[in-house]
């Protein structure tokens, strides 16, 4: 028994015919380990530890216990009837990751990595955060297990996501503003990497998305695959079969890869990854590397990037801080190239409209990140019959975004 077969419950040998990644973390030509020499040894140590514990029954049992008793899993697969009726097509089901402890899927991964850090004897935890959800989820597990927690956050994001900054501080974390570069998520990631290089002996870096050097993309995917596994079980329970489509938003892509992974071999299930279209992909002001970028190397892996024609990473634009990232997890890059997942973008306006719709029709305030996936359901559902089922991964709740929403409507809270 290892964590992968457990994740798939043995009913879908996910890697059949598509053995990804290879031993060095390559998904096709993507992924790998593009890091400075000082990090090679700690990354190798992490690879060995993860290889060992992903097959360790006691580790898996503890992870599953924490998901049930601390995170509150399984969360529901909820039939959004009023919204489905209004759209007049496929039935829409919401995977309620927003109901997890701390309000998003991010906790799945931080629980897993914190358990690994404990086994590796690392007492100091660092993390980067964009919207603050990963920072909160990291601060939470550090409080839970008594570990020092330092969270790097772009200075611009600290302003946009003030409630989450305060949450992290309440939980005992130190939040370090990052003033370099574009002062957003990518710069926070740079700064966390720099911290790690200087403190490799006692520090564990909990990366929040399915990107970075091997084994992070695989590890973060595995810890989040509980999302897709539950979708599978709950779909069969509610409808007697697998869904016809699964939609998830993609920034770095951790909630999406977690939702998609158990379905990769189920070719009858259409998978849609929705990036942040910002002002519109055609304006250049967006955060949609899979839709409008090209392959390159950043943050330890080869993947699709937003870059200029000289190979410099360019600033991204999205109303949602959690999607405001110029790269994407390497497995998504590979899934795009092999055509298994369809990637598209939703604009700020489309995401905001979907947010309001869900609030009014279903009584759920979605995170602005998740609202990009909802926006795609608005386009997709009417094209499908009412006997079809779409699952939208509602990756987080929107309480953190109320200041952003109020500002857009010209209000101050």
């Amino acid at each position, binding site marked *: 028994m290892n964590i992968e077969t457990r994740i798939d419950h043995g009913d879908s040998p996910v890697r059949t015919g598509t053995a990804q990644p290879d031993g060095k973390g390559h998904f096709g030509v993507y992924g790998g380990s593009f890091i400075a*020499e*000082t990090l090679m040894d700690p990354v190798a140590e992490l690879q060995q530890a993860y290889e060992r514990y992903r097959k360790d029954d006691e580790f898996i049992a503890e992870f599953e216990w924490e998901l049930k008793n601390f995170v509150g899993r399984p969360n529901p697969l909820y039939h959004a009837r009023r919204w489905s009726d209004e759209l007049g097509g496929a039935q829409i089901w919401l995977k309620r990751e927003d109901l997890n402890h701390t309000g998003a899927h991010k906790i799945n991964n931080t629980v897993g990595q914190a358990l690994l850090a404990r086994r590796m004897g690392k007492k100091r935890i660092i993390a980067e955060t964009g919207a603050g959800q990963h920072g909160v989820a990291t601060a939470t597990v550090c409080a839970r297990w008594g570990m020092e927690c330092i969270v790097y956050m772009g200075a611009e994001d600290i302003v946009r996501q003030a409630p989450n900054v305060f949450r992290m501080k309440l939980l005992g974390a130190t939040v370090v503003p990052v003033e370099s570069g574009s002062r957003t998520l990518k710069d926070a990631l740079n700064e966390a990497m720099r911290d790690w290089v200087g403190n490799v002996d006692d520090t564990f870096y909990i990366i929040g998305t399915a990107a970075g050097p091997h084994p992070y993309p695989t590890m973060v995917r595995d810890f989040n695959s509980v999302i897709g596994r539950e979708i599978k079980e709950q779909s069969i329970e509610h409808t007697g079969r697998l869904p016809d489509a699964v939609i998830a938003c993609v920034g770095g892509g951790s909630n999406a890869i977690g939702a998609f992974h158990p379905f990769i071999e189920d070719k009858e299930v259409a998978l849609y990854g929705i990036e942040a279209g910002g002002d519109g992909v055609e304006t250049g002001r967006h955060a949609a590397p899979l839709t409008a970028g090209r392959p390159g190397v950043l943050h330890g892996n080869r993947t699709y990037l937003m870059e200029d024609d000289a190979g410099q990473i360019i600033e991204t634009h999205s109303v949602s801080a959690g999607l405001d990232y110029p790269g994407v997890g390497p497995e998504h890059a590979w899934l795009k190239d092999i055509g298994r997942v369809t990637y598209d973008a939703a604009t700020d306006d489309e995401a905001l409209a979907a947010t309001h719709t869900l609030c009014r029709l279903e009584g759920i305030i979605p995170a602005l990140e998740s609202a990009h996936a909802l926006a795609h359901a608005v386009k997709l559902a009417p094209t499908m019959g009412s006997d079809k089922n779409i699952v939208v991964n509602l990756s987080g709740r929107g309480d953190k975004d109320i200041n952003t929403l109020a500002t857009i409507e010209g209000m101050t809270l």
Partner: protein
Amino acid sequence: MQNAISRRRIAERFGADPSRKLLVPYITAGDPDLDTTLALMHTLVENGADIIELGIPFSDPMADGPVIQAACERALAGGTRLVDVLDVVARFRKTNDETAVVLMGYMNPLERLGYAEFAERAAAAGVDGVLTVDLPPEESAELGVELDKAGLDAVYLLSPTTPDARLTAVAERASGYVYYVSLKGVTGAAKLDTSEVASRVKHIKSLVNLPVAVGFGIRDAKSAATVAATADAVIVGSVLVAMVGEHGSDADALHAAVGGAVRSMREAMDAATGPAWDPALEA
């Protein structure tokens, strides 16, 4: 055009005078502009540089501290591109055919230009070696082939955390010299333990059959001389780049500061390791 394939300036510099420890200053190309970079390269040579490491500015320099990050931002604000960096080397070669030039940077600009085109143009410009910070040897096969074809040396990093098995594996891929990162940290960090460095360098030299250059954390003449006692070359970057940041627009002050710093390191290194010519011995 320079016949780059037949010239191995890095090996020439290390082989020229066995008693001379090489001094390898680093500056970021295009900081604050390319003309300043060109003038500074000559100043570095006049004051004792043997090899110049020229930084390719990148938007996300993950292995660099705040000083070189700021230099990258200044260079990029001025619009410096990888092809401009190659151009400044070509301009330098018009009057200097001896000093080796090693480009140091991150993968993505090279990837965007294309490895083959990059290697050909770099060799044609008179570049001697390439060090890509975020390209460990494990991922380097494709670029390595192109560098080799173009006659360019591939310089790799070794660190305090590199295990012995990796030391030898990395050295097998490397040519010119290996760059020992003297501390666990980013460029410009200030916690150099020179006795630890000395024992690591001796250990590396027992396993690796290439010159060992040491960088990260060398700030002044004293630390340069101490490191030069065991290393084959001393690399100094952030302290010089900070001077560019301070004096950028004031050419006289900039060249006085950078030239003076390099000169003092050169003199301290020569004094510590024994000068090639000592008047006392003539008497």
